[in-house]
């Protein structure tokens, strides 16, 4: 039996590419080993140039690993980035990249968690939350879990098939919205946060992910709504 370390790079082959939004794609990679991470963990993806130059970046897994030799990462084209523009625009099915992981044991959720959970995501910060949300949905856990998702536009909403019609997901569109949109619009308000927290049967622990400014505003508002700081986990970027 072979052993793997999460620090060892492995070759992964692009098997499928799903357009999630104009700037975000989900990549399904076939991998040489079973993928078994828990929800919320991340991997590193490394590219190699013809001259040997390499660059790697961390990306959250889209869903928890299920033991199959498949890994799904959702990657946003950060126009000024070094790795994501190539991944988003140049990679095609059959291409190989190097990947290692999983990493991170803090911003994670497993079905052993018995407390209710409130997830709050901004933009592509929803990626690790999708992993947690679907992991919970597909598990035998019967604890409450709800997601509040702040997105610029309807077009930018990721994982529409999982989120848009779910009774446990609240979406607010901050920049523009379709005429027929009857959900929330505008930035997350204190009132909306408080209403959602009050809708839980018991006080939830919170996971917040997004741009740093978004995370700070949400974390402050959650505390103002009575959530203790030590039950708020955050993951930030930008």
């Amino acid at each position, binding site marked *: 039996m072979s052993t793997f370390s999460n620090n060892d790079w492995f070759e992964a082959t692009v098997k499928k590419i799903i357009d999630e939004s104009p700037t975000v794609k989900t990549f399904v990679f076939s991998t040489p080993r079973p993928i078994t991470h828990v929800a919320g963990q991340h991997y590193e993806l490394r590219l190699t140039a013809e001259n040997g130059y*390499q660059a*790697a970046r961390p990306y959250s897994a889209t869903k928890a690993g299920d033991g199959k030799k498949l890994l799904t990462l959702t990657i946003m084209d950060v126009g000024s980035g070094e790795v994501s523009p190539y991944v988003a625009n140049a990679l095609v099915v059959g291409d190989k990249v190097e990947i290692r992981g999983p990493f991170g044991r803090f911003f994670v959720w497993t079905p052993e968690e018995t407390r209710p959970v409130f997830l709050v995501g901004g933009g592509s910060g929803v990626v690790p939350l999708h992993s947690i949300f679907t992991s919970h949905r597909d598990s035998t856990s019967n604890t409450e879990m709800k997601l509040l998702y702040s997105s610029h536009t309807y077009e930018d909403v990721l994982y529409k098939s999982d989120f848009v019609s779910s009774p446990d997901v609240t979406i607010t569109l901050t920049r523009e919205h379709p005429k027929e949109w009857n959900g929330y619009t505008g930035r997350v308000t204190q009132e909306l946060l408080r209403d959602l927290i009050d809708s839980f049967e018991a006080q939830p622990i919170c996971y917040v992910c997004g741009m740093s400014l978004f995370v700070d505003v949400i974390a402050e508002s959650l505390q103002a709504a009575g959530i203790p700081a030590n039950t708020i986990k955050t993951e930030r970027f930008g």
Partner: protein
Amino acid sequence: MSIVNKGFVGKGGADTHRVPPGQSEVTSWPVLTYGPTPHVDTKTWTLTIDGAVNTPVTLNWKEFNELPQLQLLTDIHCVTRWSKLGMPWDGVSIDDLIDLAGGLRPDAKHLIATTVEGYTTNIPVMDVLNNKAMVATHADGAPLTAEHGGPARLFVPHLYFWKSAKWIQRLTFTKEDHPGFWEVNGYHNYGDPWKEERYSDDVNF
């Protein structure tokens, strides 16, 4: 290396004397914190130096700011793969804080830094001596903002930046090592950017 990503050129050409392997230079200063940002009032702020020191001491903000100032012009390296080069940092050297606590006892082998919210990180004592580390109050000439760890954070620039604990409250010197918050959550126990000591090894997961 068998894989070549055709057409990928990256932004190579970084100053390899300054930028450790696998890092990219940034000019912005990203914020990374595992939880909400605490807001620490300098009126109630204290810093305690205790554990394996001869005379443990607690300083208030005024006493701390009357200590001699150290400036380090240096680079910082975040494990999330960005480096920010050539920042001046001001604060009080750990050597001076140790002196104020009567010096280290011979069994002081590790520094355990604790923040106001209870986050900890561990650093070998040799890595914080000889002006290699300080409790910093200013970066780029301006007081540290809350999201960057103000009013004062540990500053150990030769290790990945999670070791430079924000909102520092206590420096405890110990005989035994006590892996801190990120160190028990999958990150490397030491964190040398030049050796890319990013993550701890999980085998057989």
